[in-house]
């Protein structure tokens, strides 16, 4: 089936939040901290502005708790006399003229008495930099399997390595924005978001309103990638505060500069590996330390850290594993959810480290992975027994075959020997991604979905899971139609409006198709039961029964409902970090071919192959598009997307100097799927959305190492960074392989 809303998007008819018709409204804007840390000693308003024309809100206007409710209650909606990062919101301003409000923001001076900020998460904080607990550690987590120290002591070979990954900006093409207004005594907030019920929770808490007096509506969302997971709550609160104070509708839309400077990014990370090995490359012990930069408030960093450490050991069997993770407080703009959620950082380190091991032991990187890859019956670092029947070696072998890995690797030395300035190399990465919330997360969410029967016999799917480009509308339509034997045209998907849809959880963690999709299937089953049909009834029979029910129950609502039930045999202990971290993993091997220009040290990915096993592929065009988009986002993270920092804030907050890949920077991405249906996922599907960003960076950097003989450990591997490395590699060195 084709994407449901494709034509509306292609013709420009799709209305995003800034496209909605709105009359008599005010434009809102945020006045932000200029300093990374300190006490706000004064707020100065320029004398040449008539401030009576403006609506101005500060922390004293917040009716409830001055807190953006998420995991911890430490982040204020508006700073109350103290700031902890540059761009922290201090005041809100609104006016009918957008230009006037922009000028007004520039005419307000926030004066901060500076205190020493913590700005480098890799360094131990000095006493005067301590601002969270005794040591600025926001969260600490540990995974222990076997006896690492003993295994390391007996290992014939130990290979160590330290790896770093940079922040990444989401660059969803639609910037963040919200509209807030009062409908009687109900506060209505609509806008671009992934998690409508997160916004409800935040509004209730800070505005002291019960659920009946808060209504949140998701508008078509122009990309999210995690950037619209937790941050929209802030904009919703800001727009709402201005609307409550002014009694008018308020529209608050970030321009690109504000969006890049003030919203979240991927957590920077530092990962250290100490690996004990047999001489043939078998893993005997993995000792891994993970440190991520959380920024100035807790936000989602504990959960990102959790996913980071669970994925840190890679898809390999090893009896002795210790992973120690810390999320550090710094006075940086808080880092947040971004596709992959910690796993890309640790899997970059792990897969780059595998190639470092291969080079150290002089073993083939393919064979190193082959001997260590998890077989059915073996366990992950958390002790989860993998027994899904997926042929993981076949995934790797398919990727090697489709990419002509071995042929090209054999040809490259001749190419490199005869070419003065260009060097080619092959690299691979083998990785996995757990789908859905970690551990007991899905149980705690208690997600609910409804499928309503309409008077005309068609059905409507009601969930809080949203479309942001990944295909929710299309996949939910396909699932409901297939379950009931209906034509897709007989299925509608309700707008995610919290006054109508149940809480089916956030649109994150590669959970929408696999987990919420299966609730759609079961709610459809429930609907069929409620109209007196058994599970074999399909198509016209279902339609007629629904229409008949409505004729017999005029004015009544008909719906089937389903709520999350844990698949049997899944056990997780959050205290010991042992057990089944995820209901299912998706598996992949990606292969990159790169060409490096020795004059400029520019790296170009000239061929890329992505093979994965994601359960049943429900919609081939959408699935392929998810992989290709994730790979290209990963190419950007690997090679060019670099946040430049000034006092914990992004200095290059423009698309002019924060570069993302264009169509001409990337090759066609070759995609293939192996399918092993997952019995507990909708239609046999596992999660797919995040997996594709885990693999490109290590595959590409491994390829650069193979091409140049350099040993890069840090991404983004920009031309400047590679040039510095190449200065230590004798020019003319041929491919190390």
């Amino acid at each position, binding site marked *: 089936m084709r994407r449901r809303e494709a034509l509306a998007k292609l013709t*420009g008819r799709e209305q995003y939040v800034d496209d909605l018709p709105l009359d008599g409204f005010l434009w809102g804007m945020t006045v932000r901290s200029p300093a990374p840390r300190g006490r706000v000693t004064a707020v100065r308003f320029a004398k040449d502005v008539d401030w009576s024309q403006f609506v101005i809100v500060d922390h004293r206007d917040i009716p409830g708790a001055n807190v953006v409710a998420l995991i911890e209650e430490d982040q204020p909606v508006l700073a109350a006399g103290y700031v902890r990062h540059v761009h922290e919101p201090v005041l809100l301003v609104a006016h009918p003229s957008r230009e006037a409000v922009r000028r007004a923001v520039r005419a307000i001076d926030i004066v901060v008495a500076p205190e020493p900020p913590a700005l480098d998460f890799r360094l131990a904080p000095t006493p005067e930099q301590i601002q969270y607990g005794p040591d600025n550690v926001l969260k600490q987590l540990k995974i222990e399997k076997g006896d690492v120290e003993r295994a390391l002591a007996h290992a014939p070979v130990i290979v160590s390595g330290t790896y770093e990954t940079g922040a990444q900006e989401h660059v969803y093409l639609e*910037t963040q924005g919200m509209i807030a207004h009062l409908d009687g005594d109900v506060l209505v907030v609509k806008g671009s978001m992934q998690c409508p019920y997160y916004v409800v929770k935040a509004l209730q808490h800070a505005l002291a309103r019960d659920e009946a007096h808060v209504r949140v509506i998701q508008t078509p969302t122009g990309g999210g990638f995690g950037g619209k997971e937790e941050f929209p709550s802030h904009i919703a609160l800001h727009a709402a505060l201005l609307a409550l104070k002014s009694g008018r509708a308020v529209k608050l839309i970030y321009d690109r500069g504000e969006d890049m400077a003030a919203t979240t990014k991927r957590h920077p990370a530092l990962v250290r590996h100490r690996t004990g090995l047999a001489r043939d490359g078998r893993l005997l012990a993995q000792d891994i330390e993970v440190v991520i930069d959380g920024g100035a408030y807790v936000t989602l960093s504990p959960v990102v850290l959790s996913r980071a450490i669970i994925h840190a050991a890679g898809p390999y069997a090893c009896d002795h594993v210790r992973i120690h993770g810390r999320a550090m407080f710094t006075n940086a703009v808080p880092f947040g959810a971004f596709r992959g959620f910690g796993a890309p950082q640790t899997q970059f380190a792990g897969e780059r480290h595998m190639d470092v091991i291969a080079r150290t032991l002089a073993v083939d990187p393919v064979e190193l992975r082959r001997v260590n890859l998890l077989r059915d019956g073996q366990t992950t670092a958390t002790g989860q027994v993998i027994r899904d029947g997926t042929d993981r070696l076949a995934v790797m072998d398919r990727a090697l075959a489709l990419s002509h890995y071995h042929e090209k690797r054999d040809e490259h030395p001749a190419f490199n020997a005869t070419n003065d300035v260009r060097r080619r190399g092959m690299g691979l990465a083998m990785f996995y991604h757990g789908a859905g919330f970690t551990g007991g997360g899905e149980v705690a969410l208690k997600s609910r979905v409804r499928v309503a029967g309409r008077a005309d016999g068609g059905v409507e799917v009601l969930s809080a899971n949203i479309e942001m*480009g990944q295909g929710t509308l299309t996949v939910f339509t396909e699932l409901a139609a297939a379950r009931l034997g209906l034509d897709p045209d007989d299925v509608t998907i309700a707008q995610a409006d919290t006054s109508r849809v149940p809480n089916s959880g956030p649109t994150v963690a590669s959970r929408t198709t696999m987990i919420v999709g299966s609730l759609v299937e079961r709610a459809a089953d429930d609907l069929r039961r409620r109209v007196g049909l058994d599970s074999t009834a399909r198509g016209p029979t279902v339609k007629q029964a629904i229409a008949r029910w409505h004729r017999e129950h005029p004015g009544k609502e008909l719906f089937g409902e389903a709520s999350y039930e844990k698949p049997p045999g899944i056990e997780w202990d959050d205290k010991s970090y042992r057990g089944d971290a995820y209901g299912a993993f998706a598996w992949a091997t990606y292969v990159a071919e790169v060409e490096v220009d020795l004059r400029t040290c520019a790296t170009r990915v000239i061929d890329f192959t992505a093979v994965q096993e994601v359960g049943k592929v429900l919609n081939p065009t959408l699935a392929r598009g998810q992989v290709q*988009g994730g790979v290209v986002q990963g190419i950007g993270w690997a090679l060019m997307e670099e946040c430049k920092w000034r006092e914990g804030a992004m200095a290059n907050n*423009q*698309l002019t100097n924060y570069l993302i890949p264009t169509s*001409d920077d990337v090759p*066609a991405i070759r995609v293939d799927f192996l399918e092993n249906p997952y019995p507990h996922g909708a239609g046999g599907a596992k999660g797919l959305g995040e997996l594709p960003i885990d693999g490109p960076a290590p595959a590409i950097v491994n390829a650069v190492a193979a091409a140049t003989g350099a040993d890069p450990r840090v991404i983004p591997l920009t031309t400047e960074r590679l040039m510095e490395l190449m200065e230590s590699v004798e020019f003319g060195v041929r491919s190390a392989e």
Partner: protein
Amino acid sequence: MNALSITFTLNGASVRVEIDPADRLLDTLRYRLGLTGTKEGCGEGECGACTVYLDGLPVNSCLIPTYQVRDRRVETIESLDPGALEPFERCGATQCGACTPGVVMTAWWVHQHSEFLQTHTIRELMAGNLCRCTGYDGIVDAVADSLGKR
């Protein structure tokens, strides 16, 4: 602020608007004339989401003062024939849709000026339109398909 009155041809019809000399064409189209198909992505001519045709050439409307289009011809996404967009639907050229109107405007221009494909690749010609979702394959395939090049 001195309001100026200008006329120009928009999607084939003459329009008159009162503008401020600093107004951007993008804002005039979106907020004054209600043509919200043209999107703002970056506001500095990098992303191409706001692409329109000015006298038949694709331009970033965020960089064009509305005053400059007086007595000239502007076409927006709303002027295109939806019937011509089938390859884009089939090949997965749109995901979130925020870049899409700009992508379609450039792609349609390439389609109408296919002589450029003798000297440039589709990837080169589309490089002024950033997309964060598709990885570009869906877009490149759709352009090739619409040109009968696949």
